[in-house]
């Protein structure tokens, strides 16, 4: 609305959901409203990789980070869904997050 000085951080509101047991790593809360900085430290538009990093740093209180990220990306066995589509259809980690996006992290189940 007003002019933004260089040092203020522009944010965008998105929703992030965790399911398949992942919610246990995020305070047992499935749905989170996140105000994500629009740009990363280098000034590039926030993408999914940046979101994952942001969630680890600012949202995840559980110390077992390796149950969410491994080798700087989400661990095998977690599907990332961008607005109800597999992130592989959208460019994976490079997908530039848009205002209002709904990002779901699903841990796959194996029980039967």
């Amino acid at each position, binding site marked *: 609305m007003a002019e933004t000085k260089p040092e203020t951080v522009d944010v965008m509101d998105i929703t992030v959901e965790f*399911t*398949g*047991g*992942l919610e*246990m*790593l995020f305070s047992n809360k*499935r749905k989170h409203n996140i105000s994500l900085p629009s740009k990363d430290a280098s000034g590039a538009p926030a993408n999914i990789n940046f979101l994952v990093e942001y969630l680890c740093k600012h949202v995840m209180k559980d110390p*077992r980070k*390796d*149950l969410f990220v*491994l080798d700087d990306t989400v*661990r*095998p*066995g*977690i*599907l990332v*869904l961008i607005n*109800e*589509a*597999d992130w*592989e*259809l959208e460019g994976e980690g490079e997908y530039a997050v848009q205002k209002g996006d709904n990002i*779901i992290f*699903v*841990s*796959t*189940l*194996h*029980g*039967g």
Partner: protein
Amino acid sequence: KQKKHWPLSQEEYRRYGRQMIMREVGLEGQLKLKRSRVLIVGLGGLGCPASAYLAGAGVGTLGLVDGDVVEDSNLHRQILHGTERVGMPKVLSAAEGIKSINPWVSCRTYESHLSAENVMETFLDYDLVIDCSDNPATRYLVSDACVVLGKPLVTASALRTEGQLMVLNYPPRPPGDTTGGPCYRCVFPRPPPADSIVTCGDGGVLGPVVGLMGVLQALEAIKVLTKTDPISKEAADGWAPTEPPSLTIFSAYSAPQFRSIRLRSRRAKCATCSVQATVTAESFTSGSLDYIQFCGAIHSVNLL
């Protein structure tokens, strides 16, 4: 002589009448179901309802694979195993339940766990496979064998209050044909770390949650089988075009409870279904595929 004009017996007409009057099934669909052979891997919380509803619908042959026996702790969700059958091999208990639901169904039981050594011979005779297993090693094994043998696969899983379902390798084109449906490895090229795996034994599960997913598996199988004639599929390239591949996610305590997620198509570098496939019929018997090692030791301390 009359038999030539009536492809089903009077009792079968009465039994299946309520689904045969639907245009989605009809006499033709009923005959396709009767000619079909469906293999169910795992006769637990998913396999019980899946096999019960496939038997009810009149699938001609059901193959049942499971090496476990019925336990007390199964009964709350594995509704085909009566209390009096605790201690009995699950495949025999399930076959009894299926016979009671529909004596027209022929059951073949495989009283052992699926392995790389026995998967090819076990799958060979079947038109479609339903994965009702409970661990990642079996899920990769089942999917790999389905791709190599050209069988569509209906896979599901459940834990606690949640369930997931996918129809994979459908249409079941040969490896390298990009018009085929994605396989389990396309969606999950790398297995999850062993310490992230939770079984229903460890994490618990609500009976109706896993029941729901099993019933959905039966439904998806019926949709595939009534579209496709298992006998004539080679001749006509049988497999009709389908909806794009998707993942159905269920969460009992969320709103909405169900979500449908669009999945990717076949992965260009998939180890199983791409032109670069390294998983072949030979690799199962040669011992080059160690699914247990690939997925890491299971039943370790686990948390998620």
